[in-house]
């Protein structure tokens, strides 16, 4: 049924339709509305049987999810930013133990400097934690991906992270189609755990493994993600059959057929990119888009097939690998091994800086003319950067960067943008 609701509410309702038995979370912006809504659904009895566990930290949230999942309960949590970092150790345990937990990451920047706004630094920092990572383009896809995620996680016995842009999606009120409970029940079978902690039949989980077998156990997490490369498109196809919607899959191509220039991105920025690409297509520019939904596993073959014929590839990333540049682009490069083309990495939207269509149009024009540097930063204020670099060069005691730069920029009230 069609509704006009906030993204967080839509995700909470979709998670509830998946009948989790344990939801544990610690609130952090911009994830808060998701878990608030879920706690309300548990309290009112709309989501039952389910225990909502109010934990004292994100580390505890993931630890409770691990414990609950190990007893055979379908388990869910959500977090963002510093919260995800705080649970990092437990993330590796969840994947190493093969526990099919589903978690929403409401993508947000990582401090310092402290910043509550959106980028992909948080989930990108955990890309090698063994979790499957799916990125949602719209709120409709965010809620659809959660339904797919539980099925994927449980079929493979591996945890899945659904990443959705904080604020941009979580706080956006837009049209969504919320499926019926019967449809979700038919799509998502009941959880049949591969391993169960049961007091009546005691076993232990989490053995220490020495050099004799560590690599083999570790490889299994990789093997599951390689299986996921097959499973993710299958689940998306099944989903389409059942729900009559294209959602999920490994990646999606937009106007890519004859494209000489292809823009690669993840998440909600794809919408603005597509609008910009439509404008350029009207001017005769052969430009297309590849939106990557599954970042882990990274679909090397599908990326190669989607990009291999292009003359240039521009990867727009909402995270910065300090010291080298792009994260997504490094993976894209791997997929394009041996293919000659121009590759550009563009870091954009860090800490919530709006990625505007006007800026994208300028950027794409530069790319099409091959005037871009290999690594560039969209809408960077270089005067501000250079002023601080000068200060660092001229004085040993130039003080903290953030405070110096804020003094240069001056007070900023909530203006038009």
């Amino acid at each position: 049924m069609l509704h006009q609701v906030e993204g967080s509410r839509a995700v909470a309702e979709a998670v509830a339709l998946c009948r989790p038995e344990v939801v544990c979370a610690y609130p952090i912006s911009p994830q808060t509305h998701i878990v608030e809504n879920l706690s309300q659904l548990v309290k009112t009895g709309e989501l039952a049987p389910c225990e909502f566990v109010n934990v004292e930290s994100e580390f505890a949230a993931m630890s409770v999810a691990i414990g609950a999942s190990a007893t055979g309960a379908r388990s869910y949590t959500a977090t963002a930013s510093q919260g995800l970092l705080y649970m990092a150790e437990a993330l590796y345990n969840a994947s190493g133990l093969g526990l099919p937990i589903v978690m929403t990451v409401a993508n947000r920047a990582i401090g310092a400097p402290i910043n509550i706004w959106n980028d992909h630094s948080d989930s990108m920092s955990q890309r090698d934690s063994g979790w499957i990572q799916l990125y949602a383009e719209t709120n409709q896809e965010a809620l659809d991906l959660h339904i797919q995620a539980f099925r994927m996680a449980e079929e493979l016995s591996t945890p899945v992270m659904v990443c959705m842009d904080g604020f941009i999606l979580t706080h956006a009120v837009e049209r969504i189609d919320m499926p019926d409970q019967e449809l979700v029940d038919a799509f998502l079978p009941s959880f049949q755990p591969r391993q169960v902690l049961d007091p009546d039949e005691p076993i232990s989980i989490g053995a220490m493994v020495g050099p004799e077998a560590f690599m083999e156990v570790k490889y299994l997490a990789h093997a599951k993600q390689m299986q996921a490369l097959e499973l993710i498109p299958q689940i998306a196809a099944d989903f389409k059959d059942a729900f009559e919607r294209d959602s999920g899959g490994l990646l999606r191509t937009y106007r890519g057929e004859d494209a000489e220039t292809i823009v690669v991105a993840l998440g909600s920025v794809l919408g603005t990119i597509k609008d910009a690409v439509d404008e350029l297509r009207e001017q005769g520019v052969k430009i297309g888009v590849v939106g990557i939904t599954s970042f882990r596993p990274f679909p090397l073959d599908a990326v190669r097939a989607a990009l291999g014929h292009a003359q240039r590839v521009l990867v727009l990333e909402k995270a910065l690998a300090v010291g080298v540049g792009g994260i997504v682009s490094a993976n894209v490069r791997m997929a394009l091994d041996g293919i000659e083309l121009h590759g550009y990495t563009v870091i954009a939207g860090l800490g919530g800086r709006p990625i505007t269509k006007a800026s994208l149009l300028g950027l794409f024009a530069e790319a099409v003319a091959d005037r871009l540097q290999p690594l560039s930063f969209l809408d960077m204020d270089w005067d501000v950067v250079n002023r601080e670099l000068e200060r660092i060069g001229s004085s040993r005691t130039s003080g903290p960067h953030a405070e110096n730069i804020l003094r240069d920029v001056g007070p900023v009230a909530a203006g038009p943008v």
Partner: protein
Amino acid sequence: MFQVRFHGRGGQGVVTAAEMLALAAFNEGRYAQAFPSFGSERMGAPVVSFCRIDDREIRVREPVMEPDALIIQDPTLLHQVDVFGGCKADGFILINTAKSFDELGLGDFVKDFRHERLLTVPAAELAREHTGRPVANAALLGGFAALSGLISLDNVASAIRERFTGAVGEGNVAAARAAHAWVADQLRELSGAASG
């Protein structure tokens, strides 16, 4: 696509206003997208929210930088924040105040604008009268429906009722109807003055 930007302060329901407008447009079978300016919301701090309305799926995710309409819930912002940034000369402007544009010191600024698209409405007063609280958001939407003709008053009313139940909802619907009537009167006077 029609783009609306709301300006107000934390606690005035600016984000809810954008959401209710989106809901009203959805109730008319249109696509709509409402979102806040993503700040750390604090009571009294300047807040911005946005609403886009279109007849097809809205994909763009940037803030509204060139609004077709501005709804200003707090006139004390006028000389503090660049509320008119990107505003078009054929755009709609609705301000919550009992003063006129001239009295607000905006006469010069808007002299090239289409005057039948600029109005002030004492929405906080109307809200106080009908709800007991000077929260102007719902009333302004009623006024905006009259000013722009973009959405019907009935759909504004149903959006308000979906967001607020019981007496609060009914009070706000009454405030929206009162503001709608006020703006409709003003528009009649303006067109009367123009033709006479």
